[in-house]
């Protein structure tokens, strides 16, 4: 059985290498397809063993969450029009240090995996059930407070010059208004999808997928495809300019952000990263980058891990929801199996990171990165169409329109998460249905 588990983890992790390189493709979509395949096999009378699909799925999530750093840094070249929205990883790319940037975030991912397996893992069964019992009746207002924070901390980016007055105020508030508008229009889309689900009932678990692809993935691919930026020659360095103290600070910042996002419903890794970034007040961009690596892994892998924690069995994140339909963990053996799979898949992914990054850099020399983005655009559009049909493509187009607002106005893309945050917070506070009725959705 041990060999079967190892083989399944290995296969999942290797497959995730290819999936992670493709910009815009989310692992939960692939997991959804695999779940459909397992259901189909069960319908044919062929039962898939959990000892195979659980480690395989864990390998997929771990591998993807570690390795999708590669496209996010190397295939997201910004041009000068992306002023204010450029991330440190992209800055590394544009100064010929893309490899260094990827490996730095990778080092953060390794810290995240270490924290999950060796720090959070042993204590989670003892403490997390208590936290859950205490906070469960209060999740709704915590979510409202998070929404308030996201909206109130959008920073005015204009209005720095010229005489005082309404014109200066209007200039400053153009980004703020765009951010608020994006949040509420996304929320409206979320209400529509929740109360008038246009996707067929067989694919209901992928209901939100086309909107998410439109809000986040398509604008990114489009931006890359039309970007006028020329990626400079990339250098590969053998050492990273980091030390233990920086890794520790990244671990604390990213671990808190990712852990918060993994534990609380609807809160994503991006929100967790935002909160942790503010709370820990880290200015060093190396710490920022590594903490993003920590946060991403702790969010995706941690959410899956919580599903196996004895006494908790918390379903958070798309991966856990997909697994919940297939399997119910019961024993501490399941938990340690999951922790072992996470450790193994994490090690394999990190070892693959350097060769995969070098391979991607070689590919970028031969193929224009804009073409790669166009190819990714084609793949994810085909995926949306194959699962959700024309209706899904329409939702995706609407989502793309909304997702382009923050790109054009320089506001936070995080505001697009209104698609989830607003309807779910309203529902948790018991005002979702009256609002839906007011909107004519009931």
């Amino acid at each position, binding site marked *: 059985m041990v060999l079967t588990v190892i083989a399944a983890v290995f296969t999942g992790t290797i497959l995730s290498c290819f999936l992670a390189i493709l910009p815009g493709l989310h692992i939960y979509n692939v997991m959804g397809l695999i779940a459909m395949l397992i259901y189909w096999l069960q319908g044919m009378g062929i039962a898939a063993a959990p000892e195979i699909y659980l480690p395989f799925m864990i390998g997929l999530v771990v591998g993807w969450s570690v390795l999708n750093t590669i496209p996010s840094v190397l295939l997201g070249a*910004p041009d*000068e029009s*992306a*002023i*204010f929205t*450029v991330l*440190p990883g992209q*800055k590394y790319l544009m100064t010929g240090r893309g490899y260094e940037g990827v490996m730095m975030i990778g080092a953060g991912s390794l810290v995240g995996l270490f924290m999950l397996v060796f720090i959070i893992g042993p204590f989670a069964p003892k403490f997390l059930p208590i*936290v859950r*019992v*205490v*906070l469960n*009746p*209060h999740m*709704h*207002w915590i979510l*409202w*407070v998070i929404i*308030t*924070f996201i909206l*109130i*901390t959008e*920073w*005015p980016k*204009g*209005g*720095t*010059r*010229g*005489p*005082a*007055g309404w*014109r*200066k*105020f*209007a*200039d*400053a*508030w153009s980004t*703020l208004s765009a951010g608020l508008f994006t949040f509420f229009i996304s929320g409206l889309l979320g209400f529509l999808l929740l109360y008038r689900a246009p996707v067929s009932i067989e694919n209901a678990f992928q209901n939100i997928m086309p909107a998410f692809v439109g809000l986040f993935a398509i604008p990114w691919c489009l931006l890359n495809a039309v970007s006028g930026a020329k990626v400079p020659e990339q250098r590969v360095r053998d050492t990273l300019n980091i*030390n*233990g*103290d*920086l*890794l*520790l600070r990244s671990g*604390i910042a990213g671990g808190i952000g990712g852990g918060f996002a993994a534990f609380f419903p609807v809160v994503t890794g991006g929100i967790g990263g935002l*909160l942790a970034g*503010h*709370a*820990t*007040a*880290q*200015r*060093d*961009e190396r710490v*920022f980058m590594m903490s993003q690596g920590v946060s991403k892994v702790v969010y995706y892998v941690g959410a899956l891990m919580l599903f196996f924690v004895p006494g908790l069995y918390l379903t958070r994140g798309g991966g856990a929801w997909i697994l919940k339909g297939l399997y119910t963990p019961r024993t501490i053996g399941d938990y340690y199996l999951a922790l072992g799979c996470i450790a193994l898949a994490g090690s394999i992914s990190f070892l693959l990171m350097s060769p995969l990054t070098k391979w991607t850099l070689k590919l970028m020399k031969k193929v224009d990165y804009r073409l790669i983005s166009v190819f990714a655009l084609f793949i994810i559009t085909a995926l949306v169409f194959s699962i959700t049909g024309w209706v899904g493509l329409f939702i995706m187009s609407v989502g793309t329109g909304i997702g382009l607002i923050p790109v054009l106005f320089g506001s936070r893309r995080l505001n697009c998460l209104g698609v989830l945050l607003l309807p779910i917070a309203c529902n*948790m*506070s*018991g005002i979702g249905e009256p609002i839906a009725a007011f909107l004519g959705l009931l």
Partner: protein
Amino acid sequence: MKGIAHFISGVTVASFCPWAISAAQEGNPAYFILGAVAGILPDTIDFKFYRFFYSHDFRVEPAAQKPTPPFGHPSQEGIPGSEMLNSEVPSKGGVAGGRGGFPDVVLFDPIKLDPQPVADAVATAVSAALDGKSTTLKLSTIQMGADNWRQYRVKIDPEAGEVRVQFGPVVSTGQVPQPDTMPDPRPVGLAKFSAPILQSYEPIYTVDIFDGPSFKFTKNEAGQVEIDFLPWHRNWSHSLTVGLLLAGIASFWTWHAGVVIFGAYVIHVIEDQMGHMGSNLFFPFSKKRAPGLKMMHSGDAFPNFTGVWLCCLLIFWNVYAAIPNPLYQFTFVRFMMYALVIPFAAFGAVRWLLIRADGGEPESLSTSWDV
């Protein structure tokens, strides 16, 4: 303190109110949202509203910032003298109409990095205050591209009676200097003023990211010119009386809301008072900011994080204490030991070991240059 610390402090204040917890248990998040908003409101008023309406007698701006001039900027209105090319920027350029014949908009060249126009403008603003009427000055930042800003420093030296200005490295939005960006040569702009100065903040002002600093120069009864750093910030918005006023307005809805708002507002003012700048505590009865206790800087990582973490723990405890028959029993001391003392001690020990293993000194990001 940083925005998130004020924000979560407001939520913590709400969690101490039993009615807020009861309402939340019934699905009403209003008191917690009110606490959060009131906690950050003083800074929101200043940074998102008031500063755009605060007018300056003198504005110092880089001339080559052509891509995104805001509405109302002279370059958009075709005022002669403001449409300058890099090579045409004089040491005193801009639009006439300021005090004492000095232009109210001084443009300097962000490529050539001549600091003299900046020094002249600051010295002129200081000297103009000797006339008896307050003067205000705004120094703009220089954006060099995506996430890059040219840093410069202004030193107002009361003993030497001079202003010294020098350009420094390009820094990221995190104020981290970028390698090999220190200009060479780096001349010092020097301008004399005759006014005796009373410093209320620090003598060296760094101008780098987002919006630049403002100053108000006022002649006091002793004949000195007082320097008021960021005059639009921590003024009337950071007063206990305004907090009381807002709480009174909210009390028309329910006194519960008034208590939450006042508590959150007051905690913001108290937290700010631990820093250097202080706040105008009793506006309109007091006209000036009361000096801060200088226990920390608002951007310091450790006090901010400790404050946020402590607030999270207090919220958790208040929520736990409101459970009638809790399934799990633990005391406040035990809770704080597990959630605060042990983790912080472990973090401190591990950090000490790591720094020691790395040579004994933590890495510093401070810009190692002085004007």
